[in-house]
């Protein structure tokens, strides 16, 4: 059983929380410009790493707020808890974020509002 520190309520037992799976999956803005295979990366494919994993969690039985967590799936060590909308600040968390296969997908590129990525996809 994990002891998870809710950013609002403090340390609570794991049973009070629900895990929302992989974090940092951005919805592509120009989805019509993606192939079905590229869109599937966003819609269906989820990471299941052995080691550092960035997850979303919700304090379901407490304040009912979402937050992000960098957790080692082997040791269960919780390296970092950080707010929704942010990226990790710890060294291990940053590395997990940068090394994710998702960073290189067309779906993630199309999630950025910059016109460069859209015109690239549109071409």
């Amino acid at each position, binding site marked *: 059983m994990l002891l998870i520190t809710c950013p609002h*309520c403090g340390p609570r037992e794991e*049973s009070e929380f629900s895990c929302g799976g992989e974090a940092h999956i951005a919805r592509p803005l120009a989805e019509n410009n993606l192939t079905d295979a590229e869109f599937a990366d966003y819609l269906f494919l989820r990471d299941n790493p052995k080691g550092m994993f960035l997850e979303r969690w919700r304090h379901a*039985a*407490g304040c*009912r707020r979402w937050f992000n967590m960098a957790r080692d799936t082997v040791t269960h060590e919780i390296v970092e808890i950080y707010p929704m909308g942010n990226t990790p600040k710890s060294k291990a968390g940053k590395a997990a974020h940068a090394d994710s296969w998702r960073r290189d997908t067309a779906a993630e590129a199309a999630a950025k509002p910059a016109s460069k990525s859209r015109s690239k996809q549109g071409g």
Partner: protein
Amino acid sequence: MASTANKGSRAPGRTALSGKTKQTIATPDGGRVGLAITELSHLGKINLRGGDDILPAVKKHTGCSNLPENNRTVQIGERTLIWLAPDEFLVLCEAGEEAGLHSQLMLDLGKVHAAVTNVTDALCALSLRGQALRKVLAKGCALDLHPSVFTAGMCAQTILSHAAVTLVAVSDDQFTLICRTSFAAYVHDWLMDAGLEYGVSFKG
């Protein structure tokens, strides 16, 4: 909503636990009662959501000059503000006053981004008293309930033996427990069972 205001709700009526037997089961050695359970019948409950700009209206109607900090309550007389989440509070008020308080808050928060919901009958409030109170709750709750950690004035939404509850520490040996009305019978039965070894009573 104001048209449904009913000052007469103070009158006796069915509550979540009105069908439960009033009983005292003292310990065989010495006849102690370590946990005394009382239903706070018809206690007014209003869920309030909003940012710091709800404070003037809250202050006007509860007397609380601050919104409670995380995991804290503020009590002025009969009215209590319970922190639930960063922008969410539960207001406890006198039985029968909830409809009036609800419409007053709605009126004064008309121009503020806020939500006011009368949840009086959705939730059941119990008063728990006694020396064994924290020991009984600890049987079904993972929260650190030691009197040096969960001190008077603190509150927590947590799980008590699978049921979602809000616990408020009124003093070292007195808590208010708030659960969904539909879970009240279960929570009552669980408390009577868990409290048996310390002596337990339900006074209606």
